């Protein structure tokens, strides 16, 4: 296959350098090369949203983004959203409201929710359901996902500040 290309990305706050084929999908760089297996692949056609990550703060589907397209960009995966000592309000909402069952779509759904709340911090139930158009969950029936997002929105507004995704590390070379 064609010549490998040098790509530099900042993933969850840490600068990473990779040599990748131009055709490599971002999700495979994250999973196979960087060992960040929290991001999943649920379909081949960009419908299910299990692979959703934040690229420069916007929710994108990493199964239809090439690694080379993310050159120079900041990528946030579920691993960078928050940990058990410091959960992101969206993670907290999913736990509190039983917004997940098998958990496979969950990282992507949560990243989608983060993107949704960034643009609309106080969504109505209808707006949340519309905002989840790009994700498919087969387990929950969505009702508790909606409650989880509502929880996160409320929590965020109570804190009085827009919650920025915590960027771990100082951006130094790996």
């Amino acid at each position, binding site marked *: *296959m064609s010549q490998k290309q040098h790509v530099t990305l900042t993933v969850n706050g840490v600068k990473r350098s990779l040599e990748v*084929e131009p*055709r*490599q999908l971002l999700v*495979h760089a994250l*999973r*196979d090369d960087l*060992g960040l*297996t*929290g*991001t*999943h*692949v*649920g*379909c*081949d*056609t960009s*419908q*299910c949203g299990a692979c959703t990550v934040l690229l420069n703060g916007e929710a994108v589907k990493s199964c239809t983004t090439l690694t080379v397209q993310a050159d120079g960009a900041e990528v946030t*995966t*579920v*691993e960078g*959203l*928050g*940990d*058990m000592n410091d*959960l992101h309000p969206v*993670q907290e909402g*999913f*736990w*509190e409201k*039983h917004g*997940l*069952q*098998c*958990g*496979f*779509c*969950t*990282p992507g759904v*949560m990243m989608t929710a983060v993107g949704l709340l960034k643009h609309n911090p106080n969504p109505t*139930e*209808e707006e*949340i*359901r*519309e905002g*989840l*158009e790009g*994700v*498919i*969950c*087969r*387990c*929950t*029936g*969505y*009702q*508790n*996902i*909606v409650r989880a997002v509502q929880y996160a929105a409320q929590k965020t507004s109570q804190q009085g500040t827009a919650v920025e995704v915590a960027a771990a590390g100082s951006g130094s070379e790996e």
Partner: protein
Amino acid sequence: MASVFGSTLKRREDPRLITGNGQYSEDIQLPGMLYASVLRSPHAHARIVNINTDAAKALEGVVAVYTGKDLEGKIGTVPTAWLPPDSNIQTPPHEVLAVNKVRYVGDGVALVVAENRYVARDAVDLIQVTYAPLPAVAEQEQAIADGAPILHDGVENNVAFHWQAGNATDDVFENAEVIVKQRFRQQRLIPNPMEPRAATAQYNPATGEMTLWATSQNPHIHRFLLSGILGIPENKLRIVSVDVGGGFGAKIACYPDEAMVAYAARDLKRPVKWVEDRRENFLVTSHGRDMVLDVEFAGTKDGDFTAIRVKNIANMGAYLSTAGPGVPTILFGLIVPGAYKIPYAAVDVYGVFTNTTPTDAYRGAGRPEATYLLERMVDLFAAEIGKDPVEVRRRNLIQSHEFPYNTAMGLEYDSGNYEVALDKALAMVGYEELRQKQQELRSQGRHLGIGVTTYVEICGLGPSQVAGAVGFQGGLWESATVRVHPTGKVTVFTGASPHGQGEETTFAQIVSQRLGVPFEDIEVVHGDTNRIAMGWGTYGSRTTPVGGNAIAVAVDKVLEKAKKIAAHMLEVSEEDVRFEDGKYSVEGAPTRSVTIQEVTLQAYLAWNLPQGVEPALEGTAFYDPVNFVYPFGTHICVVEVDEETGDIDLVKYVAVDDCGRVINPMVAEGQVHGGIVQGIGQALWEGAVYDEQAQLLTGTFMDYAMPKARFFKEFETAFTETPAPQNPLGVKGIGETGTIASTPTVVNAVMDALRPFGVKDINMPLTPERVWNAIEKGRQEA
């Protein structure tokens, strides 16, 4: 101590899943790991004339290419594990890779193993196969017709099996006051768990041990079957399925792919990973439903049900999947009389081979199909005699004092309080007011419909003696080990294999309540054949009623032993010791007490144990239930149909379910939510479509309509609790009730809305186009 059992507690499995630390089969990364990809047949039916793998093998990075011929004699065929008795069942061989003939689009033809996943895919494209296409058939009634293409040599008319049960003779129908007949098509559904199947295999050539991380609902069954296919003894074969991204029945079956991956790892002495993409999942992972049902239903003018008779022609696909034959027979046929007193019932089932993906269990497996036809027939019957469908249901429901109730199909229903659930649902939805509102709206040209289902289902599979009698090639008991460690922490090992249902939480609740140790001190281990003695897995809503009760019995064994040690420590006789909230105390002198943790430490130290008592503290149970369990309930749906567009608006949905004692209301409610959405998916949107050449046309999420968040409003759910009388915990299953009840509920509602147009039935899914056409047809006929 507050009751842990019955409380909403946050799930134990979530911390790892919300932080990206789960361990799904595809997450396994091993040094030197290779990637596999399967070349699949583009033809539904064809002879393989020639396969040329030269170009694929020559590609840089390709390690091996296997064809069916390469594997012949080196690997077994994929077995069927459910053989309904007296059905003349035919089990033609299902080769791991097709040797001479492919029988459906997706049938495996070659396996490529390469250094990375991209090269493996490139190499698959380089394999040249010459096929001689044969006529194909996708539909079961066409497949049994004379002159249809025959899939398997020696299987006449493609009939895989013919099974009959029950008794409802012609004279019962001839003498009936009212007879309603209807044909229903249970369309084929594609389960689509969000995690596609995956397998990662690692072989140790020195010890002969094989480890396979696989997406399985039942790792021990996979070990059992794969051991035979691969010729690896069970004690050298380990199956690991810790986190599994949903199953819904599709991860019960043993597939060729997992076997091939393990074969290649052993052959190449390197770890091999295979991950299905979604398109493969659509083509290869088992499908569900797909039955043509002709129903005759008899009753009196007053509204008493007298008989039901069903002919079921079931599409089994190209091969008989692991549990496939059990679905349209046992799991379907036995529950046909539902929650009603129907003196006569009979089913006549044909399983048919077609050039399609094999069918197997899909959430509810047989019971949704049976419940659908029954609940639709009840509505059609009520309309025929001009009575309210709720009134007709109430008249025929089995009454609470009549349990245990023996049905016409030979089952003994354990318990029920059907009318309580019905009344609760009617109150929640405001039934009487709704009927008035419906009248008012109709006069304004608006079409509100109200659909009701009063269901009972059979789950908690099941007594092993019955499993054997109905041809299931395994037991259906469950194992549990409750190990109390010296510090009082507890590990629970369960043979059930939850994959999203939350039993790491609810099982810990069972143990915490019964053993009196803090919830936080309990870990639940599942999904690893090397850590768990034996298990039959998670399906048929059996995990809690069978696996959960196994744990309860194991805890009781721990307590029995601990009590002896406690009595010894307290220097009283056992009869004088009482146990409460994790503490043993002396009857009448409650301050003299020892905790379960103190007892445990003494059990391990073993410095001073009563005579005849062994050291350590753990209990193991192999629990075989005495009966199935029969959850029940009432679901009610309100829809409004737009007569101009055929569009259906889901106005309201109310579910009242009774699964016996509820361990964790939040988790139980979650199961109901998910089930309802899947059932509504079948009613309104989902359906696999094959063309005349048996090509699957709905092969992606672009073409197969999966329910999305915006399709729904909030559901209202509630439980009634009628403790199950035949198991220690008093629990029944809740994993499938939503799916079983919601499909007929929604369709009944739509048909109720369309009554002014004289529409009696529409084939699912009820797309706007179908609804609009039915309205138009009704108008023309009026």
